[in-house]
């Protein structure tokens, strides 16, 4: 009996410790969730090395847990008026004997910039930018011999930067959101005109105030008052603002689409413009400086879709 009692006293802490440690280990691994043992230990999938140089090192790497793809679709288009203007420029270029820049301007797609932020469960984040669309600029389609009166035309590097419309993140994503204002490239020079009426003659004179160069322009929400009534129509309704994608489980895909029309107001040119092309046209891209509504309408009207599956 003494011997048996001694054995019990010795063993009881042992198996209790085993049980407790095992339970703690199991619950700790499972509830903690994300930091698992090496995948190759459990996952039947495998990764082989493909050594293009043929050395055949035979190394392997752990499988990823899964992916969260984020894809962007650009469904915007140019307004017919803008396309017609570019075609007129290109036709004039062709008539002058210069090689036409493009043969099919009607299929042009506006170039969009969409800044995004991916936040992960551990607090890390990734910021990147979707970029897609054609990079045509007005000066590309114009007759090179036409005096535009414009001497300094800086180029935007994002016109030549590689498109990016699909990004795949590793699992652990907590949130995907549009980070800042999307932008669209306005390919034409936009004039601000001042109209003055002579006090005595009553005649109108149009003078050029400024010329906005082609460039990326922010897509902004409508301005509203405290009751959410629209006070100034801009580029999209505030109720249509893109919402972030949240609660993203491993394997979920996030889809973002922007649709709408890129449009620029047209107005009569200034009196006696320097631009030979402008001299021959009754309307050019631009607005009168007192016309806030038309100015706010630049660069058009858009809709957003953010979905997850």
């Amino acid at each position, binding site marked *: 009996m003494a011997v048996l009692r001694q054995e019990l006293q010795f063993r009881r802490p042992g*198996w209790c410790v085993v049980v407790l440690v095992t*339970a703690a*280990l*199991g*619950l700790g691994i*499972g*509830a903690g*969730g*994300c930091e*698992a*043992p090496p*995948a190759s230990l*459990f*996952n*039947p*999938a*495998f*990764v*082989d*090395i*493909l*050594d*293009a*140089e043929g050395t055949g090192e035979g*190394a*392997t*790497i752990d*499988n*990823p*847990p*899964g*992916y969260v*793809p984020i*894809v962007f*679709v650009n*469904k915007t288009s140019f307004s017919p008026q803008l396309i017609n203007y570019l075609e007129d420029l290109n036709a004039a270029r062709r008539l002058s004997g210069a090689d036409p820049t493009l043969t099919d301007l009607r299929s042009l797609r506006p170039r969009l910039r969409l800044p995004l932020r991916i936040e992960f*469960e*551990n607090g890390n*984040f*990734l910021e*990147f930018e979707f970029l897609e669309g054609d990079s045509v600029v007005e000066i590309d389609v114009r007759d090179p011999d036409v005096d535009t009166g414009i001497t300094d035309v800086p180029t935007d*590097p*994002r016109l*030549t930067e590689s*498109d*990016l419309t*699909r*990004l*795949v*993140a590793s*699992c*652990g994503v907590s949130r995907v959101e549009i980070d800042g204002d999307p932008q669209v490239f306005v390919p034409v020079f936009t004039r601000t005109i001042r109209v003055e009426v002579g006090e005595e003659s009553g005649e109108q004179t149009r003078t050029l105030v400024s010329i906005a160069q082609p460039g990326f322009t922010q897509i902004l929400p409508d301005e509203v008052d405290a009751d959410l009534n629209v006070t100034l129509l801009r580029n999209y309704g505030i109720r249509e603002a893109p919402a972030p994608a949240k609660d993203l*489980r*491993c*394997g*979920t*895909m996030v889809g973002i689409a922007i*649709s709408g029309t890129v449009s620029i107001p047209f107005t009569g040119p200034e009196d006696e413009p320097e631009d030979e092309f402008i001299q021959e046209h009754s309307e050019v891209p631009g607005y009168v400086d007192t016309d806030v509504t038309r100015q706010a309408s630049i660069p058009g009207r858009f809709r957003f879709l953010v*979905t997850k*599956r």
Partner: protein
Amino acid sequence: MRGKVHGVAVLGVALVLIWGCSEDAQLFSDTFRSFTSGNVVPLTPGPPSQLLLVSLVNDTPDAIEFVVTAERQVQVTDEEGNPVIESTAETVRLRTFPLEHVNEVGALFDCQVTRVGLGEDIDRPFSEPGLFVLEGFEDLEAGISTGVGVPSNLLPLNSLAGNFSCGDTIIFRAIESQGQVGNIKVQSFVLPWSSQPTGFSGSHTFNNVRIFLEEQLFEEEE
């Protein structure tokens, strides 16, 4: 009696693990379940999605921008009406950072990719920079990769040679390696779709991508 209690306890833990890893349980994350058992979410796009996944893994202590080029051969008609094979290239630049989750990003390419490599000119893998070791974590000027350009020293993968096929996952991994340019060595891996299970308890990730893309294209045509 003690053995029975021990066994019950161990069995209980095992059941918790198994149940926690099951489809309907919310106790364990999908990430963990995918690691331990697989078959949760796809690791390859698979042929139905008509996509090729190129994943870029940064296992170095530096921020790295990968330059990935996928080349396709398309048949066009020349001015005389003869069929001609032309190569088109699609290049993407993706930045990674030496922190968990952000050290791996990927790009999806539509299928019929014939070659994939690092660098804008994949025919020059020993001289053309395939990746850039970025100078710090600050924002970089758009369209220009500053930092140290490092050639991949990897020949491009070729689908015609059987290196990969539509639906596979290709992984380029940068690791530290003394004696290499920039102290970086690049490895390439392929996860064939044919080695993967066809059924998943979670989302059919890449099929959903293809469905979304097709839906948007269909709406655009309407």
